[in-house]
């Protein structure tokens, strides 16, 4: 009965797995944002970065499979826990007032699903190239795949830009609660650090969203161009 696998099947155990898988994804989201900021260094640097990533197929595929399994754990447990939580209060209150629970903490399932649909769209759009028929895979002057050109082409389209901004809204809402929450789930608590833990979520959310939005808007407003 003391097997760890059993340990993780309880609702607190599920939350721990969610927190760990979620934090893994958070680290990825931060690196992804930092990597993409290289658009500001121009097409040479950015396409070079893309080549650098694609030149390491083993690493690339390990990362992809790792991310996919993290996401799978996270999403399956999220659905399981959300259903359990809905079930736990069959009759809703007629009047309800929240004092302390933040909006983002109460909408984790919703922001999570916005994220899920956004991630699927994003993969079809820029990884699999299946959304925008007007986007063509060209080579740049150095003979590298012109990922920079593809990105600039994508965000010049107002619809695509709006969808990406909506995705960032979902991401910001989710991360705002998620990072702080995962610390509590993992048992971090120490009087001197509690304010730091509370600030962790909003800070990470702000940094990641600002970075990503800067890229999207810079292209749309013509600051970064082909």
């Amino acid at each position, binding site marked *: 009965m003391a097997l760890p696998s059993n*340990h993780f099947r309880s609702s607190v*155990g599920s939350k721990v797995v969610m927190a760990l898988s979620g934090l893994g994804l958070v680290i990825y989201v931060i690196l992804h944002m930092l990597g993409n900021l290289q658009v500001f260094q121009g097409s040479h640097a950015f396409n070079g970065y893309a080549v650098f990533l694609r030149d390491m197929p083993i690493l690339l595929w390990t990362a992809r499979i790792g991310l996919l399994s993290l996401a799978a754990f996270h999403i399956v447990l999220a659905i399981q826990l959300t259903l359990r939580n809905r079930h*736990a209060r069959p009759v809703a*209150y007629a009047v309800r*007032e929240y004092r302390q629970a933040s909006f983002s903490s109460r909408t984790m399932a919703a922001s999570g699903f916005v994220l899920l649909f956004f991630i699927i769209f994003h993969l079809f759009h820029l990884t699999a190239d299946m959304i925008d028929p007007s986007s063509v895979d060209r080579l740049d002057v150095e003979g590298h795949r012109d990922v920079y050109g593809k990105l600039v082409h994508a965000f010049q389209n107002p619809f695509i830009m709006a969808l990406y901004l909506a995705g960032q809204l979902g991401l910001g809402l989710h991360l705002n609660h998620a990072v702080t929450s995962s610390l509590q789930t993992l048992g971090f608590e120490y009087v001197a650090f509690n304010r730091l833990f509370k600030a962790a979520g909003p800070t990470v959310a702000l940094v990641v969203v600002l970075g990503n939005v800067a890229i999207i808007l810079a292209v749309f407003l013509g600051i970064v161009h082909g």
Partner: protein
Amino acid sequence: MKFTLNIWRQKGPDERGRLVTYEARDVSSGMSFLEMLDSVNQGLIAKGEEPVAFEQDCREGICGSCSLVINGIPHGPDRGITTCQLYMRRFPDGAVITIEPWRARAFPIIKDLVVDRRALDRIMQAGGYISVHTGGAVDGNVLLISKDQAETAMDAAACIGCGACVAACKNASPALFVGAKVSHLALLPQGKPERTSRVKAMLEAVDREGFGSCGNQNECEAVCPKRISVRFIATLNREYLWSGVVESGLPAEPESPHAESA
């Protein structure tokens, strides 16, 4: 003072309930919330109607019997008090007040505003105790406990088991209650020997009773009449994680679930 009350009326556990509107007249501002309900009930009895059932006992904020979600907040608009410590002067004259029971699958309604909170007792029976015989009370300072430790244990031990944390939680999770109980025992030498089995048994009971899981939204802390801190939820999670590390690999030990919660 005069108030319009929307009160949840439900004849029995399997009946359909609904909000019924009553007028409370001639309420003095010095009346407590429960005294106001007493006077409404006197009126109902005089008219030959069934009085509103609600729970109370000590009426001084120590027993944890009173409940009531008042205008959407368990224990009403003031922080750090129970419903029985709430006074009518807190409401503007003529206010509309909606009164509902704690709502959770694990707290089935018995009648009107009275819910069955024995799920919390069963969580306690699963592990919220120490089973060593301690004999008579020992002299002070025989067991040396640091001031910090003693104070923190006392903060956790202030929980009166009212269940407002469950009522306030969007997921109907009792994490604050369980966190308080587990922390207060884990912090003291008497509670340490059973530390790992206790936290596991109590959390298994939580899942068995059909409560939701903690989303760390911290609404519980904001309504708790004893202002129990959510740091004890982190402590609970830490104790649980630790129990997994310490006990994994040990031989299985048969443990029968408590009969009442089967």
